[in-house]
Structures are given as C-alpha cells and as structure tokens.
C-alpha cells in the first residue's frame, strides 16, 4: 500500500467507473477471497459500467450474475463474508434495497454487534444512486440518510475518479460492511453525460483514502458549503459563479457519511461562520439536518447563518419540469449561499 499520491502529479485521467473497476480488479488479483456478484454484472459489465471488463479477466466464477433475488444474494454475501471471504455485492439501483432490507440492515449491519464482535462481515455493498434523468420515484433516489441512519454499516459516497479508486480500495480491505454509493451521473457512462468534474487524474498504483476524511474541494473564507456526490460538482459550479460576485465559497466533500469527518466541517464553519448544506436526498431527517446539528452542537458561537438545500419531502417526480423543480441545481445552491452571506 502506498500513501495517498497527490492527484495533480499524475497525467492519466480516468472516468469514475474506470477508477472504481481498477481498484476492484487490483484487489481481486491480490486476494482470491474477493469476488463480485450482482444482476447484469458479468456479460453486461454492470448497467452503470461498474464492472466493465472484469468478466474477461476473472470469468463467471468470480464475476457472478445472480437471479433477481436481492434478499438471497445480498444475504449470501453476508454469509460468505462471515466465512471470511470478501464479497462485493451490487444492488443495481439503491431504490431496490426495500426488497432485501432485512439482509442489509438486520444481518449485514448488525451481526457484528449482536455477536459481541465474535463474527464480522467484511463485505462491500455497491449501489447506484441519484436522479436527474427523469426515471421517477422508484429509480432516482439517493437514500444517503437512510443508510447512514441505520447503525452498523460504513457509508461512502465518492464524487471523483480519484476518490472512487482510493475509497474502493479502502472499502474492500475494511473488516466491516461498507455501503459504496456511486452516483450514476458521475460514472462517465456513454448514455448519461457527466459533468467534467468527476473525470480526474488517477494514479496507477494502489492507494487508499481513509473513511472519515472529508475533502476540501475548494477553499474559501465567506461561506462553507458541505455536500457529497453529484452535488459537489454543482456546488463547485455555484462557487465559481459566486466568486465573480466577490463571494468566496469553501466546498467540502464529505466522501463518507459513516464515519463522518466532523472536524473538517467544524473547522470550516469556525472560519466562515456561514453554513449551507446541500443534499440530493430528502430534506427531513437526513444529511442536512445532521450536519447542521453537528455545527450547532460544537460551533454555535461561530454560527451566523445556516441554510439547507435538499430534495423536498415528496417522491421524485417523472416529468422534466417537476424533477427540475425538486432536485437541487446550481442556482438553488447559489441562492442559498447568497441568502446566508447577506
């Protein structure tokens, strides 16, 4: 394992999906116990390119297509992990977790605790999240808050290719269950255009990014914007446009929700005094409330204004004007920043 290489010193750029796959392939070469299972992960290469090319290298025994029976195969991953293997199991869209919820939140997440630490579950649950392409309420959620709320699983959300690789290495090596949530719009899939941001330089050597290390993606002194996933890029875009108006925005990418890097958030809030939290997930009982509560508990004296930008508490609608209304965009973020900066 090498230490984190600074991405700017590398001239090879990868899409987020290529970076993810590279980490998986590396780990599979290193460790016979690692295997990947999910629907359409073999010949299709993953609907969102999450396993592109792996079948050719590892064959159907280690890149395993499974029946559409999430309870069975996610639960099977739990069982294999408890036997000491290191399965990676993919839930095609996070929205489908409901059909297998018990295996996820009672078995995968709690067996370590309930066994008093006698067994552990070193598996990775990968899953696609996010909207922005009009697929409606059963195929567009992020559910960050849901997974982070239920105890016992680590939850990571990369926003760039560089982070995706380092976080994946860390996820596979972790002895606890990790939920690895990748945003469809960041993957660099042919049929779903990504913003420029997620494609970054990625070192060929392996490296890990520790969980609980938020990344300051842009430094600034006036307002702190805390966010994750796709909205890191939207926040950066908003920050660029606000810079022209003389507002200096700091953008923090949480990168993992469990564990949560409260230090980086608090340090920034103490500096700027103004906090905006942006989340593609539902507004109530989620990431926005959590971050603001953290700031209120530990940096109340420095806090001058807060604002949250999130999906309103309704299911995600299908028609374009409706979805555009509900999913936060660059303008929504800019408006929130302006309102706390006043």
């Amino acid at each position, binding site marked *: 394992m090498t230490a984190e290489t600074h991405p700017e010193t590398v001239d090879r750029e990868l899409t987020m999906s290529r970076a993810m796959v590279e980490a998986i392939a590396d780990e599979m070469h290193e460790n016979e116990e690692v295997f990947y299972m999910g*629907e*359409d992960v*073999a*010949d*299709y290469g993953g*609907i969102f390119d999450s396993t592109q090319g792996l079948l050719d290298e590892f064959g159907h025994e280690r890149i395993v*297509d*499974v*029946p*559409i*029976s999430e*309870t*069975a195969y996610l639960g099977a991953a739990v069982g294999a992990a408890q036997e000491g293997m290191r399965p990676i199991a993919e839930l095609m869209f996070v*929205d*489908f977790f*409901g*059909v297998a919820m018990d295996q996820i939140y009672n078995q995968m997440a709690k067996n370590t605790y309930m066994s008093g630490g006698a067994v552990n579950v070193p598996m990775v649950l990968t899953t696609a999240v996010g909207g*922005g*392409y*009009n*697929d*409606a*309420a*059963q*195929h567009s959620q992020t559910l960050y808050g849901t997974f982070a709320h239920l105890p016992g699983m680590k939850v990571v959300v990369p926003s760039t290719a560089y982070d995706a690789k380092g976080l994946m290495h860390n996820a596979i090596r972790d002895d606890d269950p990790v939920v690895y949530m990748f945003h469809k719009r960041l993957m660099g899939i*042919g*049929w*779903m*255009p990504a913003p420029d941001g997620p494609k970054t330089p990625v070192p060929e050597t392996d490296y890990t990014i520790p969980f609980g290390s938020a990344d300051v993606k842009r430094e600034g002194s006036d307002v702190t914007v805390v966010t994750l996933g796709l909205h890191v890029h939207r926040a950066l875009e908003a920050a660029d446009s606000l810079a022209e108006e003389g507002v200096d925005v700091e953008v923090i990418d949480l990168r993992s929700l469990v564990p949560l890097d409260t230090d980086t958030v608090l340090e920034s809030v103490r500096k700027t005094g103004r906090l905006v939290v942006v989340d593609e997930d539902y507004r109530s009982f989620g990431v926005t409330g959590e971050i603001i509560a953290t700031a209120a508990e530990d940096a109340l004296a420095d806090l001058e204004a807060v604002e949250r930008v999130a999906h*309103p*508490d*309704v*299911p995600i*609608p*299908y*028609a*374009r*004007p*409706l*979805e*555009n*209304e*509900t999913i936060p965009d660059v303008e929504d973020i800019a408006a929130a920043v302006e309102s706390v900066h006043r």
Partner: protein
Amino acid sequence: MTTISKEKLTGFYEDMVTARYYEERLQEEYLVGKQPAFDISAGPIPGELHLAAGHEASGIGVCHHLRDDDTVTAPHRPHHIAIAKDVDLDRMTAEIFGRETGLSSGKGGHMHLFDPEVNFACSGIIAQGCPPAVGAGMAAKKRGEDSVAVAFLGEGAISQGAFLESLNLASVRDLPVVFVIEDNDWAISMPKERVTAPLDGSRRADGFDMPGIRVDEDDVVDVYRAADEAIGRARDGNGPTLLELQVHRRMGHFMGDPETYRPEEDQELAKERDSIERLKEELRSHGVDEETMESIKTAAHERVDEAIEWAKEQPKPDPDAAYEDAFVNPPSGVTDTEPEFDLAGGED
C-alpha cells in the same frame, strides 16, 4: 376446446397491431433529440423506456377475458397489457410524454401507469405487483364479488421473494388470482438458464399446490385458451393459477441497450417468431381477407397516431405541482391537493 369466433380473432388482431404500432411510434418519438450520441435525459420522452414488441400475444390473450372491474398489475414493460386492459390510451400517452393530463399528472411515467377506471396499476420494482394483486383478489373474495386479479411479471422476476410469497398466500386463501409469467428468455443481459431453475417456470406452481400451465409458442389463440381455464377457475371461486407464456423480446431490454451480450441468431429468431404473423394465418383460415386486416390495421394506426399527437399538444405540468399528491389528506404544512379525478381507494 372452446371455439373462438372470427370476431374474437379480429379483436385480438386489432389490439395486437395497436400495441405493436404504439411501440414503434414510441421508439421513434423517444429517439428524437437523443441522437446521434444517445443521451437518456434528452428529447420529448424522458427517462427509461422498456418496449414490449414481441410480448403482444400474452397481454392480449389474457386481458381479452377481463372486465373493467378485474384488476391487473403490470411490470416495467406495460404498454401491451395496458392497451389490452383498455387503459385510456390518450392519457397513458400523455403520461409517457410527462404531461399534465397524463394518467398520473406527469408524476409516474411509463413504468408507473395507474388507471383506476379499469383497475390497472404498475410498478418498476421486480415482482412487486404480485402482492397487490393478491390483495385485490382478497377484496373480491371478502366482498363476494366474482372479479379476478391478474399479476404479470417476467421470467426473470420469478425468483423474487414477493412472487413466491404471493403464490403461497393466494394458494392457502384460495384467492381469485392469476399469475402470468411472460417468458422472453432474458432478464436484461441474463439468459434464464444462467439464473433460473427449473427452466419451465410454470413448475413453480407445484410447490404451492396450484395448477401451473405453460404455453410454449407465442400464439394468442393458445394463450387465450389457457387463460380461459385460469381466469375461469379464479372467477368460479376455485383459486389461483400460474400461467407461463413464451413471448419474445424483439428489442433491447430498454431503449439504448446495446445488446452486445445477445447472440445475433437469438435476436433474429425473436423477430421471426412473430405472433402477429401467426394470427394473420389464423385469420386467413377463418376467411378474413387481406383487405379487412389492412383496414383494421389502418384504423389502429390512426388511433395511435392521434393519441400521440394529442399527448404532445398537452401542457407540461406546472413545477409547483411537484409538491402535490404525496398525500390525499396532507398534514399541515404540506401543500394541499385537490384530486382532479375520482379517487380509487378509500378517502377518509
């Protein structure tokens, strides 16, 4: 064996050519603005689109036994079933185009078509239409009505817990439910031999003590006969049946699917085994001439074109409507909603 009248057969033909042409027109409209590089989020029809060309014999053969008060739950590939169940074609099309006058006011889209007038509902989550169909069967039985419920699902969906649990519940309660498996051999890229045992899905019925019937060719007449038995049994109060119907997927799983996993011969075969051509043979043998078939087809195409034109002229929803409909009885602080159409369920 039940004899099938010429009128019935021409009725099948009308619905089958309507469904097929509807898919062709949707395909055309869907690709507008998404070319040359396919971009799923561009163009007049948003989101994913799963076309059902090659599935017609199943939806039409089954639903021609149904009344408006019978319930149908459809999966993510619903158009042919909706057409056969007499779902309002105009409003369904407006929904697919994301318009205000769509069946769900633009909130649901093509995988979530709800038409309470004819008891039709959809879900995009695999096999999750099965339990609600069991519930509809339960309601009919409790009320002493002779309506039935039909749940459609793909052969890839039959390993899903919700399906298996539903078979059992329907069986132990002797409910008027028919489960219809549309076997097109593929679950996205996964051929059934890789993910399903046994290959004959109708054998799942054995484990739940209910009759299982499989129709090997996608022949609408065979389907109609098999469905007659299954739906008749349900309507007569003799419990559920599992019906597995061979169909074919003429297209990719969804629009934009490169189908690189699928052997070309298989794609060719799917197109050759055309249930519409088969039915035309049957019609000829009943003395229906080409002219009659042509005029039925022309009228069907006109109806489809009109629905699409109408839908495209419909207004787009007001962005503020996004906040309506989460509840029919909104808690304070939540935007109020006035249902524009009669509510299907209870309203207290």
